[in-house]
């Protein structure tokens, strides 16, 4: 499943999707950045409610397939511009983290 397909299947809002064809191979949930650094794998959909520029750096360094911001959290315009430049996919959803993870998990089965 690609990041673009994931967005479509779960009706996620597209905040920035420079690489819709990126393959999503797993998932990781977490808000504490060094837990994410230590645990997220390349190709993961990273579900978080953390929403500042550091999220972009961590997503970039961990090579996650996309960031999925839960509970309607958003990145501000400036940070989204950076995400675009760094070619990071950022999606969001009104669903809370747990429910998002369950749905992503279903799709990746």
């Amino acid at each position: 499943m690609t990041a673009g397909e994931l967005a479509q299947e779960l009706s996620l809002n597209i905040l920035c999707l420079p690489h819709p064809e990126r393959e999503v191979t797993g998932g990781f949930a977490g808000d504490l950045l060094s837990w994410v650094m230590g645990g997220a794998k390349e190709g993961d959909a990273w579900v978080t409610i953390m929403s500042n520029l550091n999220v972009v750096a961590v997503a970039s360094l961990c090579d996650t397939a996309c960031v999925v911001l839960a509970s309607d959290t958003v990145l501000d315009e400036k940070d989204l511009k950076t995400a675009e430049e760094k070619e990071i996919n950022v999606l969001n959803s009104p669903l809370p983290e747990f429910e998002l993870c369950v749905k992503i998990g279903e799709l990746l089965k």
Partner: protein
Amino acid sequence: MSAPLKLHFDIDGENFTSAGEASVKVKKWLRQLGLPQDIIRRVAIAMYEGEINMVIHASGGYAEVTVFPDRIEIILCDKGPGIKDVELAMQAGYSTAPERIRSLGFGAGMGLPNMKANSDTMKINTEIGVGTTITMTVNM
């Protein structure tokens, strides 16, 4: 690759929200050099944690990354407060990060453990009131 390749970065100690910039650049550079993915990833994670620590705990410093034929060396040097108890600081979960930093997602106390886990060697030289220098290597 014959002669070692080296990059130097000054790390701004004021900028909590866009820290990580040097690590992102190093990652890109190592990619251009065509190094293996898993090596790049380990370097990126180890360096990012060190870079962030310099910003949030030591008001900045410099980073130097050298690519040798058999390893990558990362040096992170700051003139911050130093680390009082290195063994304690290395423990997963130990953090002195203030609240305003925690609200950005830092302060899990996992940075130094991540650096250890992603490097093959890690040496911490620290002196109270003088600063901290951390040298890590990642073998190819």
